[in-house]
């Protein structure tokens, strides 16, 4: 499945409205905000249809799976939005992650746990906001709000860049920052929390990570960033996304795609948007002098003309570090 899907679920007294944009959406937040009621309404509607007085308006079917028989329930569901309520232990399992991978469904998961096996975006972690009271003329209205923003504005003054990966992304940042600015690799997103915790508090640090798949780390890393002063997060979709939006390939089709990626990214083919952007850059640059590989940076990406284009898209804090370099 691809595209954004507008979902409205309504009864006489309650209304939920949301846009589901990627294959994995997480709903969490305070107790008593209506998360389980939303799942209950979907369950009732699936079981009893319009007899319930509930209406579900969406361009694709909505289904709910739960409990120990989730695999049997999921196997016949295709091209649908699948909702999973809190209290379903399987959502943290590798087996469930395997089922989500290559699936033509989108998944809305109600949980506060960090789901390490799933590559979900920091922008698709939501809370529920509600307005109105029972028995008023209008139904109590529930909508989603983003718990974390994908931060692309980093304004402080820093002396170290910590890059999530150890391959092309790290080679690019260390290449443009030179010897005067410290650039280190975390060797994977799972290590960022420990590095932040153990660092010297006088070291001022920008953390660059792939926002498109950083959701499972966001709770502990954003807490560490708030707690230990002098560090900030820069969360582009991915390093390849930075290159693509910088128009290094000078390709109009690429620019159309990165403006509305949800219209082009099929959940069957790509577990996360990060993987799609890598695929797009690899395929579009194949056969050119900019042939891209994630494992090792093609030195052509470090030529002045291309670096200038990319730097325009980087946050001010990194631009200032480049002036030092």
């Amino acid at each position, binding site marked *: 499945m691809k595209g954004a899907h507008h979902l409205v679920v309504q009864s006489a007294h*309650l209304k939920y409205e949301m846009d589901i944009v990627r294959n994995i959406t997480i709903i969490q937040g*305070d*107790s*008593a905000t209506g998360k389980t009621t939303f799942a209950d309404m979907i369950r009732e509607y699936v079981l009893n249809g319009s007899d319930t007085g509930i209406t579900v308006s969406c361009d694709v079917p909505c289904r709910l799976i739960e409990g120990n028989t989730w695999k049997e329930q999921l196997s016949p569901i295709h091209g649908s939005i699948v909702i999973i309520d809190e209290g379903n232990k399987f959502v943290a399992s590798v087996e469930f992650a395997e089922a989500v991978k290559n699936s033509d469904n989108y998944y809305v998961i109600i949980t506060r746990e*960090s789901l390490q096996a799933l590559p979900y975006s920091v922008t698709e972690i939501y809370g529920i906001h509600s307005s109105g009271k029972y028995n008023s003329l209008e139904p109590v209205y529930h909508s989603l709000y983003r718990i974390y923003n994908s931060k692309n504005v980093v304004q402080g003054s820093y002396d170290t860049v910590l890059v999530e990966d150890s391959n092309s992304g790290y080679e690019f940042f260390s290449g443009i920052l030179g010897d005067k600015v410290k650039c280190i690799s975390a060797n994977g997103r799972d290590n960022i929390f420990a590095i932040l915790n153990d660092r010297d508090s006088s070291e001022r640090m920008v953390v660059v990570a792939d926002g498109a798949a950083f959701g499972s780390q966001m709770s*502990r890393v954003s807490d560490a960033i708030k707690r230990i002063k002098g560090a900030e997060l820069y969360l582009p979709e991915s390093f390849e996304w930075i290159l693509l939006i910088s128009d290094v390939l000078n390709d109009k089709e690429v620019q159309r795609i990165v403006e509305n990626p949800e219209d082009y990214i099929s959940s069957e083919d790509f577990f996360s948007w990060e993987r799609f952007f890598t695929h797009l850059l690899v395929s579009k640059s194949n056969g050119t002098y900019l042939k891209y590989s994630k494992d090792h940076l093609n030195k052509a990406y470090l030529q002045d003309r291309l670096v200038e284009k990319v730097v325009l898209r980087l946050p001010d804090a990194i631009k200032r570090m480049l002036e030092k370099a």
Partner: protein
Amino acid sequence: MLNIFYGDMKDAIYNTSAYFKFNFDKEWMSSPEVIQMIRDVDDSEVLGSGAIDSPVLGIIAPVSLSGGVKTLILIDKVPDKVFNASNCGDNCARWLLRLSEEREITVNLRHLMDFGEEPFKIRILNNNEVVSNMGELNRIAGGYV
């Protein structure tokens, strides 16, 4: 004191709503502590042992309370079991601290709960360390969730 085991805990009751549904005791609803929890977390008034007035859902049965408040009630009323407190939002945290002022409470957490800015005493069962503020707590707990 509040004792927390972070991460996957064998024998902890994960689906607290299912446990509540089949083990609910109507006597629980006459406890002043439970009445206050429901008022504070769910913004709802207990009308009797089987009815609660919710500002969003109208008159509801106890099984329709929020997952968070049902978990708090279980932690309070079923002390011989350990429950998954990740069904509780941050708005339940002060109740976990309050319940643990009078006795030892043990819960399982699978996420970082915000216990607020005030000092507290929490034992992290994974390494048996006692911490007194959010900085100390999440520095350790973040390694387990």
